[in-house]
C-alpha cells in the first residue's frame, strides 16, 4: 500500500482546491483511500491557501510538520512558509524562476509556470503546469501522468475547450 503525504500551497485564486481534488480522485480511481484538508473563505481573497493530501492508510486529514513526502507550491514565497512540513527526505516542486528558491535541505524542482501560462494565454493554468512538473520525474508522486489525464478527462468531459487547455498545460509542465 502506497502511503504518501503532500502539502499543496499558494495563494487564493490559483486553483489549489482543483488540483488537490484532481489528485485525490486519481487516488480513488486507483483504489487507494484518501483524505484531504482544504482552506476556504478568506483564502480566496488573496490569502495563503494550504491543502493537505494523504493517500493510503490515514485517519487524520492533516499532515504533521516533518511528515510530508512532498511540497508543491504555486507561489515561490510559500516555500519558506511551508517547508517545515517536509520530512528530511522530502522534495519540493515550486512555481518559480530557477534561482529564486534556496535549496537548503530539500531538493527543489522549479518550473516558471507563470511565464508558461501567460504564453499560453491561460493564466489559470499555473496549477496544472506545476502538477505536470511534479510528475516529470517518474515515481515522485503516487500516480502516473496517464492516471491524472484520465481524471481530467472525466472531470471536464462536459467542457471540451477547458479540457483541451488543461491537458496542454499539464503536458507543458510534464515536459519541463
Amino acid at each position: 500500500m502506497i502511503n504518501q503525504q503532500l502539502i499543496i500551497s499558494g495563494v487564493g485564486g490559483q486553483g489549489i482546491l482543483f488540483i488537490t481534488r484532481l489528485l485525490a480522485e486519481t487516488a480513488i480511481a486507483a483504489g487507494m483511500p484518501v483524505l484531504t484538508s482544504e482552506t476556504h473563505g478568506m483564502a480566496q481573497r488573496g490569502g495563503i491557501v494550504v491543502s493537505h493530501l494523504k493517500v493510503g492508510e490515514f485517519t487524520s486529514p492533516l499532515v504533521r510538520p516533518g511528515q510530508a513526502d512532498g511540497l508543491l507550491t504555486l507561489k515561490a514565497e510559500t516555500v519558506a512558509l511551508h517547508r517545515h512540513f517536509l520530512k528530511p527526505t522530502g522534495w519540493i516542486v515550486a512555481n518559480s524562476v530557477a534561482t529564486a528558491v534556496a535549496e537548503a535541505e530539500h531538493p527543489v524542482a522549479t518550473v516558471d509556470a507563470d511565464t508558461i501560462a501567460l504564453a499560453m494565454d491561460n493564466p489559470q493554468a499555473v496549477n496544472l503546469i506545476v502538477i505536470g512538473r511534479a510528475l516529470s520525474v517518474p515515481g515522485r508522486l503516487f500516480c502516473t501522468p496517464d492516471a491524472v489525464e484520465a481524471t481530467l478527462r472525466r472531470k471536464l468531459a462536459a467542457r471540451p475547450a477547458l479540457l483541451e487547455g488543461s491537458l496542454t498545460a499539464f503536458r507543458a509542465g510534464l515536459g519541463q
Partner: protein
Amino acid sequence: MKVLRVFSGGGGGLVDDKRILMQGNEAIARGIVENGARVATSYPGTPASEILSAVQQWQKAEGIPIFTEWGVNEKVALEIAYAASQSGLRATVAMKQVGLNVASDPLMSAAYLGVEGGFLVISADDPGPHSSQTEQDSRLLAMLAKIPVLDPDSPEQARELVGLGFELSEAFALPVMLRPTTRVCHACQDVTPRPVAELGRTAAFRKDPSRWAATPAFRYRLHVQLNDKLARIAAHEPTAPRRLNPTAVSRRAIVASGAAAAHAREVLAALGLRENLALYQVIQPYPLHTAFANDILAGFDEILVLEETMGVIELQLRDRHRVRGKLSGAVPEAGELLPELVERLIADFAGKPAPAAPLPAAAPARRPTLCPGCPHRASFYAIKRAAPHGIYPSDIGCYTLGLNLGGVDTVLCMGAAVSQAAGFYQAYRVTGQPVDIVATIGDSTFFHAGIPPLIDAVVQGARFVLVILDNATTAMTGNQPTPAHGTPAGRAVTIDGVVAGCGVRFCKSGDPIDLPGFTRLVKEAVDFARGEGVAVVIARSPCLVDRDRFRERRPQPSVDATCTGCRLCTSQFECPALVYDEETKRVSVDVMICSGCGVCLDVCPVKAIGTKP
C-alpha cells in the same frame, strides 16, 4: 441507481460506481438525502456553507422531493425547518457556530416541545478560529439546550451520524445536534453513496396546544419529561462510546471525540502505542453515557480527554482528579487541537519523549485582501474621503477586509454595524461632541440582522450614514442568494423598499466604481446625517467572483512614467494588482490579476494611471 455526480467545486467527483470523493459537508448533505429529509434550510457561514448547496445539487441531479432554502437568518431557518418536524417530516437546519447563537432562542424552546419527525440541527464549529468571531463549542450549547449532540471524526462518519441522529431524534422525540468542525466539513474522503430513502410520509400536524403552545406551567412538565429523555439517551446503545483498540491492556486511557479522535488514532499508531494505551472514541459527547462515565473512572488510573474546543466530555466526569484535559490545564484552552499537539500530549501521557517536530517559519503570511476590482474597495475609499475623521462601524462579510484600507473600526457580530452606529451617536451626543459616523453593512447581512436596529435608530432620532454594500450576493461564503434576488417560488424584496419602510428619509443609490460620483453621494449623505437623521447610501455594483454575472472585457489600466512613487494607491487604495517596485521606485499593474475596473485612474493624484485605447 441513477448515476451520481458530486459537484465538488471543480466538476463531477464520480469515479467508479462505488467510492467517490466527498467533502465532509457533501457527506453530511448525502446523509440528509439518504435519510429521507423533506426540508433542509440554512444560512451561509464557514465552515457549514456547502451543506445546503450540496443538498440542492443532489436534489437537482436525482430529482429528490425536498424543500430547501437559504433563510434570511439562522433563527428563521431553524423555525421553518422545525415546522416540518412538527408535521411529522424529517427536517434539518445547518449553520456555523455563531449562527447557532442566533438560532438558540427557538432551539431552547424546541427542546422542551420535542419533535415528531426527526429534527437535526447542524452546527459547524471553527476551532482556531479560522474565520469566525469566536471558537465557541456548540456541544456546550447542546448541553444548555438539553439536547443530545453527535461529534463526527471524518466525512464518512459525519454521513453515518446524520442517519443515527435522525433515528435518535425520532426514538426520543427531541431535536438532535450534529457538530462537525472545519477538519470534518472541509476535509475530503472517499465515501460510497447509498440510495435515497423514500419514507412515504405526508405532512400531518396534529393539534396539541398544551404541548406546541405550552405555557409556563406546562413547560415545567415538559422539562421533567426532557430530563427523563436525557437519562435514557445516556443509556442508548447505538451512540455509546466505542473502544477502538480492544486488545490493548493498560491502566491509562485516552478518550477522544471529533477531529481530535481522528488525529489521536493516527498518532497513537505512529508512536507505536496502539497496544499500550486504551483509546475510546465518544460520538455522543452530551449526554455522556452513564455506564461509560462510571466504567472509565473505575477501570483506569489516568485518563486523557482530547476534544474541541471546550472540556464538555471532561466536565461530565464527576471525579476529575485523575483526568487530564482542557479543564485540568493539560490541553491548551484556546486554539485548534492540531495533530502535532495531539502527538505531544499523547507522548507525554505515555511517559515517552515527544518526537521533535520542525517549527513553522517566522515569515509573515500574506494577509487576505479584497479582490482586485472589488467595488467595496472603492466604497471604502470614497467613505474615507467623505468623512475622514469619522467612526466606521462595520459588519461581517467580504467588506470586513475594508480593515486594510482603514475603513473598518468595529466588527462585533451580524447586524451590529447599525446598532453600534446608533450607539456611538448617542454616546457622543450625551457628552456634547459632534462626530461623523459612517457604518457599512453588506446586503445579505442587512437582511439578516440590520433591519431591527435601523428601525430603532430612526425611532430614537440617531444620526449617521449607513452604506449598504449591495453586490447582489452573499460573497464571502460562496455567493449564495439574498432576499433581493428572489427565488423561483417567491418574489424579491428590495433593499430600497425596506429602508423606506424603516422610516429613513434619505436613501439614494450609486455605483462605487464611479468613484468621483459616489464620493459626492456619500458627502451628501454625511451632510444630511449631520443636520437631520439617518442617511442610507446603497452602493450598487456586482461581485466579481459571482460566476452568474456577465463579465465584459475592459481596457487594461497601466501606470506611465509620470508616476512619482508617492504610494497613495498602494497604501490608501490597497489594490493587490498595484505593485510598488523598490528598485524603480514606481508602481506598476500586475496584469495577471488586474480586473480592469479602472477605479485607480481616479485615485492617482497625478493621473499617472490610464488605459490604452
